[in-house]
């Protein structure tokens, strides 16, 4: 997995609340057996007409946001299904961070497995990011994961909280499975004990 340390990029505003995983990537794209190539299908129904042409009003179709690397979103982003295709599509498009007041739990987890930083902010701070994002391509937002700060284009600095274990993994691009495998002895010990106490499992 790619490490995430700092990011300076264009932020796209998506103020809609409850942007669900079906909106992020509709089911017809879940038939793939690969993780890659889903960027073109990101936000499919909001982004394209039925004939495949782009909807000019959709934020990521506007010239100033086509290269966005950050999304600033309404509350409860990523609610719905467990499909990891949602962060795969975001990552493939080039989105590396999403800022909102809240995220659905499974989506939130899935982001970390794919080098995407989901940032949870209180509403006023999120709104400040949203206003900055609305300025378009001239406004670059800077995120420093190590320092846990977001710097807006006018120099305003916002700090954010993050679980330290997740931060560590993201900063170093660590693979969870490898980390867990190092604890194989603990797992084996647990299994041995469980075979005694709950043999029916």
């Amino acid at each position, binding site marked *: 997995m790619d490490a995430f340390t700092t990011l300076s990029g264009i932020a796209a505003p998506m103020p809609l609340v409850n942007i*669900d995983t079906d909106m992020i990537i509709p*089911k017809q794209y879940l038939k793939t*057996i690969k993780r890659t190539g889903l960027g073109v299908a990101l936000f499919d129904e909001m982004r394209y007409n039925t004939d495949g042409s782009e909807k000019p009003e959709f934020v990521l179709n506007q010239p100033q946001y086509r290269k966005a690397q950050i999304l600033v979103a309404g509350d*409860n982003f990523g609610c719905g*299904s467990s499909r990891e295709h949602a962060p795969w599509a975001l990552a493939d498009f080039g989105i590396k961070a999403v800022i909102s007041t809240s995220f659905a739990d499974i989506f939130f987890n899935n982001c970390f497995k794919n080098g995407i930083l989901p940032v949870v902010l209180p509403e006023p701070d999120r709104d400040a990011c949203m206003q900055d994002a609305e300025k378009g391509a001239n406004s670059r937002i800077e995120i420093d994961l190590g320092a846990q700060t977001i710097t807006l284009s006018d120099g305003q600095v916002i700090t954010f909280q993050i679980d330290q274990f997740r931060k560590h993994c993201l900063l170093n691009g660590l693979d969870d499975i490898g980390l867990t495998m190092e604890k194989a002895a*603990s*797992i084996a010990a647990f299994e041995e004990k469980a075979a005694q106490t709950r043999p029916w499992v």
Partner: protein
Amino acid sequence: MSPKTLYDKIWDAHVAHQAEDGTCLLYIDRHLVHEVTSPQAFEGLRMTSRTVRAPEKTIAVPDHNVPTTAGRDVHIDNEESRIQVDALDRNAKDFGIHYYPVSDVRQGIVHIVGPEQGWTLPGMTVVCGDSHTATHGAFGALAHGIGTSEVEHVLATQTLIQKKSKNMKVEITGHLRTGVTAKDITLSVIGRTGTAGGTGYVIEYCGTAIQELSMEGRMTVCNMAIEGGAKAGLIAPDEKTFDYVRGRPNAPKGAQWEAALAWWKTLSSDADAHWDKVVTIRGEDIAPVVTWGTSPEDVLPITGSVPAPESFHGGKVDAAKRSLDYMGLEPGMALKDIKIDAVFIGSCTNGRIEDLRAAAEVLKGKKMAPGVRGMVVPGSGLVRLQAEQEGIAQVFIDAGFEWRLAGCSMCLAMNPDQLAPGERCAATSNRNFEGRQGRGGRTHLMSPAMAAAAAVTGHLTDVREMM
């Protein structure tokens, strides 16, 4: 010992390792797998030469994109679907995990097959690459959805890296009134708490109205815990749970059954346990409900009318405008005046035998309204068989419904079962998101009895008027 909730007890029994910052390795007792969220995980194992740590605890079944029409065991037309199902066939074989192929009568929606086959037991940890894994919480099992990277993690290590969630109690007191079902409970709770109300929590549903539900009803309630944002939903196991589990193919037998039972009986929240959040609803206050918008929190009693977006606050105002536009509805319109084009009865929320019985009860001797198309998709091959034996299938067929093979079907429309743009559907599934049942399709969520009532009249209907 400090008092514990049911969640605390199951959690504590599964911690294989705890780091100083509280990050745990949680041991997973059952891992359910389906064709859509697993291919990349198995591919990951192959690429790293890893194996499945506990194949005997891993169960696979294709359900999401399989057609629900005859002949699917011979050939699946859609190439991408076929490739995914073939991949699951191969992965199950290569890695030696339990498998129910489409040709097996026990095949069905993974969350229906698990309990039916006795894989789901009280006090277990159960995960699946599917958000509605919450369903298994009805047995007092800690069950939740995971992403594909986590599927790979569980396959390789039989654990998940987890931090503990907070405890939330949802109590439904008293008794349900006639015509009100488990689906109305779970939708009403989400209507009250919102789709993010449960974020960060594991919910335990309790109270007399929950205890009085059958196991099927309890599964319906827990199934939608995720729609309320919760990590998982739980219901403490009781005699009904034990009766359901007893004798299932993979349930413990003999002395093991006795030992299991003794432990399962300790699985309830202590009276003085701490709750981080409590929601209480009177069972008598719950009416048959439907959704009007494109979020499961857009819930109203069937006697209500379409709300005005201005009646909401903050970002929800724009979201409601967008919803009404998508749904083609005007504020102030009576919900009962909304005409429907299609009816879908099925899904892991309401595709069990009790759900089909409830719908058939309303439909018996009646016909679907002219111009309405209806589809019944049993949750498993065994549910289908039972419904045929009970004569329920014939009730649906006589009413004009299509009687299909088991699968997810029009719950998420990955297979050919889809709504056309603008088509409006009374659905017993769990998500009314934009495009969920087909691009441009409009979904109203409700109970099986309400969906059957709508099928007969051709518009959203208060089932109580037909009882």
